[in-house]
Each structure stands twice: as structure tokens, then as C-alpha cells.
């Protein structure tokens, strides 16, 4: 008698729990599993221990990092101000977001219809009116605070000032005294011999050296004094920031109101229409005059109307927009890399001869830095596109749904190709390895079933290699993301790299903090990309072994 297979019966709760745990496992978020198990009341002591280790410890470590950062950063002064603390970086990130929101609001305002515009304009005007009072209040506050902190400020500056003043007076008298004494001695020299005269020379040198030393000392004291003078107390700084914020808002609101009023597309269109009507009327009703000139004006007015009707607000590149462009760029490069690497990798895995042919290229080009590839690619791409605007590829990409909003240009393509060229190797090598490591037994099965080449490729070879292909793709995407920022900085292609470069050239303390913001954004996005690839990799893996990091 053949025993029937029995699978254990599970309650709905247990099935739910295992489903969640499996999802957590596949997404590689294993630190969450003790929480789920704790909720399911499974061995609470053990789960609490695990939570302590995998959740609390990382949080504590990160908190320690933040603490060290806040403590150490202000100690280092640069020409762009102090190294920003976490708090400053957080404020900077809010600033970046606010700028983006305001620019988006302007762009939206430009396109609104009249009813909407009127309503929004009303709101903006109300806010502007309120700003007056707020600004007056802020100004009053800052003068109060400044008055209040005047004493504190003086007390802070006083020691260094007294020290400096005292030393300066002291050195001045000492110098006059020394000079007088020298002059007295000089008067006597006329009657003295060579030895005395030579000794006198030494005295003059001595005086010069002492004067120089005193100058140096004084300089140091002066620096301390000036530095003390630049001291702004936190409360003053805060009040100043509040004023700056209000001023920025005022500037935004006035521009916004303009976009909602005379500057809107609708108003501009109406203006152009009336201009056209006027010129047309002039042209049609004129009895004599320069008809050529009048006709020209009509045609130009028509063109103007046409462009105005489809125009958009020239929105500057805000960081979120640049992030999206960078992501598009990295995915373009990644797609190109995959399209090249996977087929070649499969061929390499299938044919040792082909592999032998490819080995020199892999060995030679794999270690080449993106910073070398990029200029070369830029020149080559530039050679293909002497007039980028009229090139068929750029024109074609202008019709691709999302890409068209992000201005694909040769710089974008060069960066994407650099990403592709640097990232394809991991996928290529992994694919080749995956295909080559196919089991002989599986090939025997294919032989017995008399599978043709295509069936063998798609039913046996590729499924075998898929986990390793995805492992390669994961590395490729991570490499691509790292390469991209460098490529964008060098090629000044709009994107995160361009933002960093702009902030670097800008050199203000705020832009310095925004560069730190970029560090975290790049890190977080990189982490997410990696997670996504891990999930894909886990989904195509057919064995239970091996867990994601």
C-alpha cells in the first residue's frame, strides 16, 4: 500500500503569519520578522532579544553617529562656513523642498484658467497683506533681541578687545622707546670707531626682529577679536533666519501673483490676440503705406500667438526634478547595459570559444574608470549629433511619455552610456557564469526530450542562469548609480551631479548643507534600488538557500 502524502493543516492565523514572514524574507527586511513573531506571541523573550539586536542596536548606533557629527562639525571652519550639523542639514533639506514646491506652484499658476486664477490670486494677496504685519513683528523682535543680547555680545567681545587694545598700546610705546633709544645712540656714533658702529648695526637688526614678533602677536590677538565680533548668538541667528524666510516668501508671493495675473499664459495669450487683431486691422484698412512691413507684423504676431498658446513657465531645475532625471538616466544606462550584457553573457556561457574571444575585452575594459570613459563618449556622441536639436534620436525621445519632460540631450545620453559601459561587466560575467554552471543532467533531459536550441535556451538555460543574472543586475545597478553622479558632475548634465556641482561653485554655507542633503538622498535612493533588485533576485531564485543581505 502506498502511503498518501499528508500536509499539516494550518489555521488561518498561522498561514497569515507565515505569509507575512515569507514576504519579509523575500524583501530582505529580516529585521522586521521578530516584530511579527512577537505580535503572533511566539517566544516573546527571544523576539525581544532579537528586536534589541536588530532594531535597537542600529538605532543607537545611528544616534551615536548623529551626536558625534553635531559635536564635531562646528569645530571645523571652512570658507563656506562651519561644517553643517544634522540640524542645519535638515533645515537645508526643508529649504530644498520648499523651493521645489514654490517653483511647481508658479508653473501651475502660469497654466490656470481665469476662475482658478482669480481665486488663488485672492489668497496670495491676502497672504501678502499679512506678511507686512509679520515682517514688522519680526523686525521689532530682532531689534529687541539684538538690544537684549548687546550686553552679552559686549561681554563676549570685551576680553579679546581689551587684550588686543592693551597689547597694541604696549607695543606701540615699546617701539617708540626702542626707536628713541636707537636714535640717541646714533647721535653718538659720529665720534665712535668701527667696532661700535658694527655693534649698532646689530642693535638695529634686533629692533627689527622684535618689532616683527610684536606684529605677529598683535595679529593673532586681532584675529581672535574679529572672530569674536562675528559671533552671532543662536537667538539672533534664529530671528535673522525668520526674517530671511519672510523676505523669501514675499519675493515668491509677488512673483506668484504676477504669474496669476498679467504674467499668466491666459493674459499673455489675450495680449497677443489683441496685438494680432490690431496689426491685422491696420494691414487691412491701411490705404497707403508700407504694406510689406505691415504684413510682416501680422505674420510675426500670428507666430507669437501660436508660441504663447503652448508655452510653459520656464521652471528651474529643482532637486526633485534633478533626482528624477538622474533616475531616468541611470535606468536608461542600465537598460542599455542589460541589453548588451545578458545576450553576450549567455553566448559566453554557451560557447567556451566565444568566451575566449570576449575575455581580453572583459579583462581590459572592466577596470577603466568612468571618468575616462565619459569624455571619450561625450566626444563620440557629440560627433553623431552635430545639431542635437535636429537629431532623429533626440526628436524621437522627445515623444517618449516621461522622458520628454526631462530634456534628453547629448549630455544625458553620454552619462547614460557611461553608466552602461561601467556597469555591464558585472551582469555579463554573472550571466556567463550562470549559463556555464548548468547541470549536465538538465542538458541530458533536454536531449532526451529532443528540445531545439530555442526551447533549450528558454526552458533550461535561462531559468538556470536567472538567479545569477539578477545577482549581476543588482551589482550593475549599484555600480551605475555610483558612476552616474560622477558622470553628471563631469558632463554638467542636469541631475543630482549637476546639483552638487552647482552647490560647490556657489560656495555659500547653505549650499554646503545642501550637498550633505544630497549625500543622504543618493544613499537612500541607492538603498531602495538595491532592495528592489534583491526582491527580484529572490523571486527568481528557486532554491531556499541563501538569504539577502
Amino acid at each position: 500500500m502506498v502511503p498518501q502524502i499528508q500536509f499539516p493543516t494550518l489555521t488561518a492565523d498561522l498561514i497569515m503569519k507565515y505569509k507575512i514572514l515569507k514576504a519579509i524574507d523575500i524583501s530582505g527586511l529580516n529585521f522586521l520578522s521578530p516584530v511579527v513573531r512577537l505580535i503572533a506571541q511566539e517566544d516573546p523573550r527571544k523576539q525581544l532579544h532579537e528586536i534589541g539586536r536588530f532594531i535597537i542596536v542600529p538605532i543607537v548606533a545611528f544616534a551615536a553617529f548623529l551626536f558625534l557629527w553635531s559635536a564635531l562639525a562646528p569645530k571645523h571652519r571652512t570658507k563656506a562656513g562651519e561644517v553643517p550639523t544634522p540640524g542645519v542639514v535638515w533645515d537645508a533639506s526643508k529649504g530644498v523642498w520648499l523651493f521645489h514646491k514654490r517653483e511647481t506652484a508658479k508653473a501651475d499658476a502660469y497654466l490656470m484658467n481665469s476662475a482658478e486664477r482669480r481665486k488663488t490670486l485672492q489668497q496670495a494677496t491676502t497672504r501678502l497683506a499679512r506678511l507686512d504685519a509679520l515682517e514688522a513683528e519680526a523686525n521689532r523682535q530682532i531689534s529687541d533681541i539684538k538690544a537684549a543680547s548687546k550686553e552679552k555680545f559686549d561681554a563676549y567681545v570685551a576680553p579679546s578687545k581689551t587684550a588686543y587694545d592693551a597689547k597694541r598700546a604696549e607695543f606701540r610705546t615699546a617701539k617708540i622707546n626702542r626707536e628713541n633709544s636707537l636714535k640717541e645712540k646714533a647721535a653718538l656714533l659720529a665720534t665712535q670707531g668701527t667696532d661700535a658702529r658694527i655693534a649698532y648695526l646689530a642693535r638695529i637688526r634686533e629692533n627689527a626682529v622684535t618689532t616683527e614678533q610684536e606684529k605677529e602677536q598683535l595679529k593673532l590677538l586681532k584675529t581672535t577679536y574679529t572672530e569674536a565680533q562675528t559671533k552671532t548668538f543662536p537667538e539672533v541667528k534664529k530671528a535673522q533666519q525668520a526674517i530671511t524666510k519672510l523676505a523669501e516668501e514675499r519675493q515668491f508671493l509677488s512673483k506668484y501673483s504676477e504669474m496669476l495675473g498679467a504674467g499668466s499664459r491666459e493674459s499673455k495669450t489675450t495680449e497677443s490676440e489683441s496685438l494680432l487683431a490690431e496689426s491685422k486691422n491696420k494691414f487691412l484698412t491701411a490705404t497707403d503705406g508700407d504694406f510689406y512691413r505691415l504684413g510682416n507684423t501680422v505674420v510675426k504676431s500670428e507666430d507669437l500667438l501660436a508660441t504663447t498658446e503652448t508655452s510653459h513657465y520656464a521652471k528651474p531645475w529643482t532637486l526633485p526634478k534633478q533626482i528624477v532625471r538622474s533616475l531616468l538616466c541611470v535606468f536608461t544606462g542600465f537598460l542599455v547595459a542589460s541589453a548588451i550584457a545578458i545576450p553576450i553573457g549567455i553566448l559566453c556561457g554557451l560557447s567556451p570559444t566565444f568566451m575566449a574571444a570576449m575575455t581580453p575585452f572583459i579583462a581590459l575594459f572592466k577596470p577603466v574608470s568612468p571618468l575616462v570613459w565619459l569624455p571619450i563618449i561625450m566626444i563620440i556622441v557629440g560627433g553623431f549629433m552635430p545639431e542635437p536639436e535636429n537629431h532623429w534620436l533626440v526628436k524621437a525621445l522627445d515623444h517618449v511619455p516621461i522622458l520628454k519632460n526631462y530634456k534628453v540631450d547629448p549630455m544625458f545620453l553620454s552619462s547614460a552610456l557611461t553608466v552602461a559601459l561601467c556597469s555591464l561587466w558585472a551582469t555579463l560575467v554573472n550571466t556567463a557564469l550562470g549559463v556555464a554552471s548548468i547541470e549536465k543532467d538538465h542538458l541530458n533531459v533536454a536531449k532526451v526530450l529532443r528540445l531545439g536550441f530555442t526551447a533549450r535556451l528558454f526552458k533550461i538555460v535561462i531559468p538556470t542562469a536567472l538567479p545569477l543574472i539578477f545577482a549581476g543586475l543588482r551589482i550593475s545597478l549599484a555600480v551605475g548609480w555610483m558612476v552616474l553622479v560622477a558622470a553628471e558632475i563631469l558632463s554638467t548634465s542636469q541631475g543630482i551631479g549637476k546639483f552638487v556641482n552647482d552647490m560647490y561653485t556657489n560656495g555659500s554655507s547653505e549650499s554646503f548643507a545642501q550637498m550633505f542633503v544630497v549625500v543622504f538622498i543618493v544613499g537612500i535612493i541607492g538603498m531602495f534600488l538595491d532592495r528592489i533588485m534583491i526582491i527580484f533576485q529572490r523571486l527568481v531564485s528557486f532554491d531556499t538557500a541563501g538569504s539577502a543581505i
Partner: protein
Amino acid sequence: MPFLELDNVSIGFGPESDRVDILKDVNLSVSENEFVAVIGFSGSGKSTLVSLLAGLEPPTSGTVSMGGKAVTRAGPERGVMFQSYSLLPWLTVFGNIEMAVKSVFREYSRTEAKAHVERYIEMVHLTPARDKKPHELSGGMRQRVSLARTLAMQPEVLLLDEPLSALDALTRAVLQDEILQIWEQEKRTVVLITNDVDEAILMADRIIPLTMGPAATLAEPFPVTLARPRDRRALNDSIEYQHLKTDITTYLLDLNREARSLRSKTIFQMPDIAPRTFKLPPVKLGGNRKPASRAS
């Protein structure tokens, strides 16, 4: 009338100048619907014999033929059940069998194919595990899937390459009964490769020992005339069974002895050494014992 035939077949590996023969001058003829067991020690070339019969490897000399036609390549008419299951790990039980069915019976419609696959899953009693992946199954269940896949191709010859050697004794017995039962139902020509004398006697009509490699060949067959269906419990008491088992075992052991004596013609004089003391050196963790100290 032989159905499956090996005629003076030799196969070797290595370069022409330094060829090592695995099988030499092998002659085998299997009649239609006959159940033949080839028995031999491991490493004697049993799996190579299956590869030859299946057409997975061409012989160096001699011919392999089936139904009078030379075998030049593998095909579904000779279904192989591999020792290591060789199931595709990314497909379910159903998927594995379906792939075989779809590539053999291309003319089947979707429903026909499905019914066909399910019939064979039912035949090996795996219906509850229909949608499981191989790694979720036990060894015995995997081997059943492999059996179902091979049977689903409806081959004219079944080549079973030590199909049960990786299984525990209990599971093996169950599967032996299952294979026999299926064979009784749909008669096929079967060549079973095994290293288990009991298994061979229980299942086969004829048992052919494979001599020790290298250059192994098939020896004189032992016909098994025990009545079918055979009951393993009754078999133990049968005199005929006991005689047969003793004969085959003795033959195999003699083969082994002969092979060993052939291998060690020259007797090496061992150096005259003895440990200085009888105290054993300390045993390291991990169990690697250091060699005893040599006498000077």
C-alpha cells in the same frame, strides 16, 4: 527477436593515444517487454551503459540499435530515469511533467496535455503535491516525479539508472512495488541498473552482472524464473530465491576478489616500524588523529 541491442560496443575516454576503456565488447540483447536488470559495483560503468543505451553518448566502436534501427541520438522513445532525479527546480511537479509531455506530444491540445499530466501524477500518487516545487519534496517524492515524467513520455524502452539508490530502505521498497505495479499494467521494455541484488531479483526477468571496470563487460545472465506478481514477504522463504541470491552474490564477490587480486599483483614490503610507546597522542578536536611517532 531482440528489441534493444548492443553489438560489440566499446566506449572509452581520454585521448586516442592514451585511451581508457570504460566498457569493452559489450553485447546485450533485450526482447520486447522484457525486464532486464544490470547489476554491478559502483564505478564499474553502469551509468555509462545507460548513456549508451539512451543515445546520450556515442560508442567508440560497435553499434547500439533499437527495433533494428541504429541509435544515433537520444530521444523520447527511450525514457531515462536519472539517478539524481534531474528535475528542473524552478518548475512545479506539474510543470516538470508538463514540459516533457508538451515536447513529446506536440499535437496535444491544452486540455489533453493537462489530463495526460494529471493521469501520471495520479499514477505515482502525487496529486496532493501537484503544485509543489522539487525542493519542497522528499527524496522519494522527487524520484516519483522523475518516474512520472519518464512514464508520461510513453517511451518504448524505460532506462532506469539506479533510480532508488539515493533513497532509504522503506521508501525504496514502496517505490519498487510501485514501479512493478505500473510495469505489470503497461508492459514495457525495461533496463534497470542497480547495485542491489534483492531489488534485481524482485523486479527483473533476467539479471546481468557487469564485471569490474575498467574495460568492464557484461557477464553471463542469471534468468529469474520466479512467478509474478512477486511478493517480497513470500520471496524470502522461497528456496529458488535464496539460491539465486547466493549465486549472484557469490559471483559478484568473486568478481570483486578477482579484480582486487588483479590490481595488487606486486606486494609491497611494508617498512618495519612500530610505535615507540602504546600511549596514543592527544586527539585533536575534529577527530584528526596525528600519526603515531615513528621508531628511529
